């Protein structure tokens, strides 16, 4: 369809003007300042990307050439817009392209990296530690002991319940849609509004300690500080109820935000959790300027899907019970 070709073409425009990562810059960029003198990171940003967290197994280099990157984006955009086969599980979904929800139709933060993970150098998650593997098995067993995924609302994933999405963060990662962030700065605080689930991270910059260790929160306890031009946010006090990629509640996250030019905010993060991974790992995503405003994604407000899923599971159980009763020999 012509429409799809245009969509893919528009996704590629950003790549042609993109400088090679690591290329020497003519002169160092100095970010504008807020009235109280902080580097100004304010505005709307997007981290929408087709670059995967882990490097594809058939790729063994850190950066694509521009031609290869174009090919990757073109294929990914075409795949996202491609029609699914009727009667298959992926077909049970509305079409992203009819709602302008496919990534290539919005602003994108394109780059030449072959993975978001920059360390380990192979671009892949480090192996699980023995403790991490054991805990993963225990979590799976505990989940099974609670019954099927639709047996009770508490068994539904946090995302289906509109509590927290896997990529809400911290750390903040892109998905298919809702990839915009708004940063606001006030003396002593920075606020990051996350479009997905409309979550506002309000982070003090005044040097106060994290919350007491017995206070555990879905998104932890974040404290920020400036390291030259870079905003550094450290997060602890996470909860075992939400395990980012299988992490423990002891995970320590360090996020770094550096403005590289008027249009680019470099987002880096490091995950330290020796009880899960054999070594720390780090990722990097260049965020790009996006248009605002962000409209409220009040997920819980209209979440008919949760009701329909549970009602559907009950109807299927009833049907199965009736069929079983019919098969029973009559006395």
């Amino acid at each position: 369809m012509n429409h799809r070709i245009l969509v893919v073409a528009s996704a590629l425009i950003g790549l042609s003007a993109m400088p090679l990562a690591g290329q020497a810059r003519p002169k160092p960029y100095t970010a504008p300042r807020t009235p109280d003198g902080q580097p100004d990171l304010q505005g709307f940003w997007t981290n929408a990307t087709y670059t995967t967290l882990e490097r594809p197994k058939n790729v063994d280099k850190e950066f694509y050439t521009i031609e290869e990157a174009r090919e990757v984006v073109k294929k990914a955009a075409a795949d996202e817009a491609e029609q699914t086969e009727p009667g298959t599980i992926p077909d049970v979904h509305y079409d992203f392209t009819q709602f302008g929800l496919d990534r290539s139709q919005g602003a994108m933060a394109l780059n030449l990296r072959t993975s978001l993970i920059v360390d380990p150098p192979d671009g892949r998650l480090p192996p699980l530690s023995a403790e991490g593997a054991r805990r993963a098995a225990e979590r799976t067993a505990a989940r099974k002991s609670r019954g099927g995924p639709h047996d009770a609302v508490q068994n539904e994933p946090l995302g289906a319940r509109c509590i927290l999405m896997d990529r809400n963060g911290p750390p903040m990662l892109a998905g298919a849609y809702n990839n915009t962030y708004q940063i606001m700065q006030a003396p002593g605080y920075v606020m990051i509004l996350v479009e997905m689930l409309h979550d506002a991270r309000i982070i003090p910059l005044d040097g106060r300690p994290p919350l007491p260790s017995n206070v555990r929160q879905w998104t932890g306890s974040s404290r920020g500080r400036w390291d030259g031009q870079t905003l550094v946010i450290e997060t602890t006090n996470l909860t075992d109820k939400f395990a980012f990629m299988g992490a423990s509640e002891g995970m320590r996250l360090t996020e770094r935000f550096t403005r590289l030019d008027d249009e680019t905010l470099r987002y880096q993060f490091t995950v330290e959790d020796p009880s899960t991974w054999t070594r720390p790992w780090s990722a990097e995503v260049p965020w790009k300027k996006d248009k605002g405003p962000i409209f409220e994604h009040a997920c819980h407000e209209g979440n008919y899907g949760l009701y329909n899923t549970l009602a559907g599971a009950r109807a299927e159980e009833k049907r199965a019970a009736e069929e079983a009763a019919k098969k029973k020999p009559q006395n």
Partner: protein
Amino acid sequence: MRTRRAVTGFGVALLLAAAPAMAHHAFSAEFDINKPFKLRGTLTKWEMINPHSWFHLDVKGESGAVVAWMIEGGSPNQLIKNGVTKNTLAIGTELVIEGYQAKDGTNKGVGRNLLLADGRRLLLYSKETEK
């Protein structure tokens, strides 16, 4: 609808990585793969509520009786950002919708493909329509 092409190389890795992030819940748990439908109806209300919008339609059955249906679609916060409003699709618009019915057997479904009465695909937002 076209069949998904076989993809190779970079495409496979990207596709596999992208798939789980697509939806905030499993649509195949809400809707029944074994109950596909194609219905023609008149829009009576468009609920632009997050996380997914719902199209309300009056559908005339074979007996002539009118039955109310609800069809799940994309999230409004993105549509509004792209300039789509409740007025973009007028009440009374005739739509032909292919989709899958809710597992609980009620008249709800997910709209796999939304067509206007003249057969054109409904594009609520696309860069093509913006040009």
